[in-house]
């Protein structure tokens, strides 16, 4: 078989979504947590047999006495994290998002969220960040978690977001859920006048024709698509909303309330995520405004190579560009 005919493969559980040649940072979560623990002795780390795959191993190596391996037991992971928070520690507990959201929900809800404990849930492989198939693709994690009272939900774009978010998550009093990006994570937001502020959205760039409202890795794609659309004489504003809940409706609606085309972009099913968050804010405010979603379809997704899947399900930069041009009739 020649390389020309060889099909792309899933290759690994965790495929990188960084573009070739893109600047990246290695394991930003693990390094940020290890650094935070240097100055805050309440910090502990736990995992359910996924330390290496959630960058928790970096923390474990730096602070072995404050790292707890709970085994492949997600209910124990989060119950124990609750117990640690009850005695005054600040746990970060990591597993894959699918297991946090689907297997351990009752424990997160009753042991952590109801008593408002400072437990920080760290979920790997959020949305479509693995080609492994539905068992590992947490396409509906935000939809599941948004209904949980007291829980703060953070969907970071890049290594800058993650590094700056970790201390703020620890500082926030109640529980948080971080949609982890791990391994070699793109570094994007340092090119903008931007600082992560928990609970706040930020306008990364202005634009007169279109408003993108995005979170997570889709902010990176939104910025790339905005550059591309400029070549088509389409001027795009990008509003990054790394905190999905509580949602910064004020900042977002100030941008939405205009005669520009409004598009939401999220690495998540179109059901129950950023699109619906924005839509409900728009309706609650009484704005008669159409919002166009770019999101994963309401279905179980295929396995395959990540670039293929991002293309197929509309998360790739060129599919975003095409969709916007079609909406604008260009």
């Amino acid at each position, binding site marked *: 078989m020649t390389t020309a005919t060889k099909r792309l493969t899933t290759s690994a559980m965790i495929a990188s979504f960084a573009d070739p040649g893109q600047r990246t940072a290695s394991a930003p979560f693990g390094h940020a947590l290890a650094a935070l623990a240097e100055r805050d002795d309440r910090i502990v780390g736990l995992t359910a047999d996924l330390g290496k795959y959630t960058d928790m191993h970096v923390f474990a190596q730096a602070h072995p006495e404050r790292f707890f391996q709970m085994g492949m*037991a997600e209910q124990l992971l989060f119950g124990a994290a609750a117990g640690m928070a009850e005695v005054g520690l600040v746990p970060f507990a990591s597993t894959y998002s699918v297991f946090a959201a689907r297997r351990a929900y009752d424990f997160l809800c009753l042991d952590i969220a109801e008593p408002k404990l400072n437990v920080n849930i760290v979920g790997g492989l959020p949305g479509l960040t693995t080609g492994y198939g539905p068992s590992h693709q947490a396409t509906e994690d935000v939809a599941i978690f948004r209904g949980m009272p007291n829980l703060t939900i953070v969907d970071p774009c890049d290594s800058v977001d993650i590094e700056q978010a970790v201390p703020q998550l620890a500082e926030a009093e109640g529980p948080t859920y971080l949609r982890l990006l791990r391994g070699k994570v793109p570094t994007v937001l340092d090119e903008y006048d931007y600082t992560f502020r928990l609970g706040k959205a930020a306008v990364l760039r202005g634009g007169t024709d279109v408003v993108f409202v995005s979170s997570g890795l889709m902010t990176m794609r939104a910025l790339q698509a905005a550059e591309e659309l400029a070549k088509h004489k389409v001027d795009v504003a990008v509003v990054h909303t790394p905190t999905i809940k509580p949602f910064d409706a004020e900042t977002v609606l100030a941008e939405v309330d205009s005669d520009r085309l409004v598009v939401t972009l999220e690495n998540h099913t179109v059901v129950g995520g950023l699109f619906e968050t924005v839509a409900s804010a728009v309706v609650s405010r009484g704005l008669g405004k159409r919002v166009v979603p770019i999101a994963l379809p309401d279905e179980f997704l295929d396995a395959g190579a990540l670039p293929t899947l991002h293309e197929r399900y509309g998360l790739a930069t060129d599919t975003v560009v095409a969709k916007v041009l079609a909406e604008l009739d260009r």
Partner: protein
Amino acid sequence: MTTTRAEKVRDAAYRMRHHILDMGEVQGQGYVGQALGVADLLAVTYADQLRFRADDPHWPDRDRFLLSTGHYAIALYAALAEAGTVPVSELETYGSDGSRLPMSGMASYTPGMEISGGSLGHGLTVAVGMALGLRLKGRHQRVFNFLSDGELDEGSTWEAAMGAAHHQLGLLTAMVDMNALQADGPTKGVLGIEPAEEKWEAAGWFTQRVDGNDIDALLAAFDAAAERARPVGQPSVILCDTRIGRGVPLLETREKAHFMRIDEDEWQLCRDQLTEGHEGAR
């Protein structure tokens, strides 16, 4: 005449059973049968074993008592009233609107309630984290988790059992109410859990099984667990076979029900039987 430990516990359990009947009457029904069954077990815990300050439920040096079986709150309220954490006069608000004593206790507003139980199979997982956390902080407090035989159906209980043994949580003690009954009927018919001792032993726990209504046996078992309790060591479980409705023959012999119905005219009869039984035993 000096009062022995057993006598002190027995008298506490007797008063707690009266509290349980009084609270049960407020609702007209409820988990009275189970609560009467575990009164001896909770009396041993609160009157003899647990280190706590009744007037300061958040005292940092206290041992932790976690009620995983949330619907047993009626029994714990009786123990907390006996201990002095909850005023006896407040018990009549049990399960009423605005009460601090709901049917299932809430850590956020019920005095002396460490966790909000209710969803079964949670307590032991939280207890593992507390024991790990207290040990990390260099504190040598014990953590007691109360659970029921029905909770042995839950996979999370066994996740926690393995975790506690793996992390050698020697200051963790689980007490299991083996009353052989759960919501849909006898435990044996719902989901068999025997041989329970072998399961806990295989999971790595120091395991004892006692008659949960024999105060001398309970004291001996708790003393043996306390003797072995150390920061790094084997966790300890005491499986307590209890009799539903214990102390009130009318209820002991009634058809066993998870949610026992007691008629209006029966409550005083229950109290009289309880008092007669206690005085007869003196």
